[in-house]
């Protein structure tokens, strides 16, 4: 699907939180996961800026680990604040989708 980016913008941070919440992971792996899900337009640079924001807002714990080649990689895991934020994201998502579904079905 083309032009999903605009619609995704507000939710991408939640998606990244969810992926990081599963297991400790790094930017490239997160991007690949989103691509596999069908969000083909998401590039590593986008994920990188989201991870920076999460880091700045104190929602993730960052660990540098040596990689097989090149510079050490930054690995991300959720801390307590991150898990709380993730729960908030799903609550908001629930709210928005239920309203939009209602609209689509022609309810009140």
């Amino acid at each position: 699907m083309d032009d999903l980016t605009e619609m995704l913008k507000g939710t991408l941070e939640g998606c990244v939180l969810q992926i990081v919440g599963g297991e400790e992971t790094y930017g490239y792996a997160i991007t690949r996961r989103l691509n596999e899900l069908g969000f083909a337009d998401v590039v590593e640079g986008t994920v990188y800026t989201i991870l920076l924001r999460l880091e700045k807002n104190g929602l993730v714990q960052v660990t540098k680990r040596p990689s097989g080649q090149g510079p050490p990689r930054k690995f991300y895991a959720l801390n307590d604040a991150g898990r709380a934020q993730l729960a908030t994201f799903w609550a908001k998502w629930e709210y928005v989708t239920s309203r939009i579904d209602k609209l689509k079905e022609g309810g009140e």
Partner: protein
Amino acid sequence: MNFWETITGSDLTREWKAFESRVEELPPDHRAAWEKITGHLSVYSDFSGRNLMPILDGALGLLEETAADGQSVHDVLGDDIEGFCAALAGGERRRGYRDRWREQLNRNVARKLNQLGG
């Protein structure tokens, strides 16, 4: 950072040199992307550019990691390097030196016009 470095910006020169030697290690297309990134980010600079140093360090780190992975610049940054830079610099456009110059110019013009009685 000591006082001398703050005044002369010599610490920045040194950091910038360190960036440049890292950039030389990058493949050509990553190096070209770096040029674009520094260009786009410069509008977010404060007067000395000190605020950009950690941002640039992170962006360079991303280029280094992805070059080591063998990813192309397009895979990493897509088509929108400007948007990437805006997000890096903190979402909305931050007030940079250009904004201040613009304001100053506007003020001066307004004052001149008042003097002319316009």
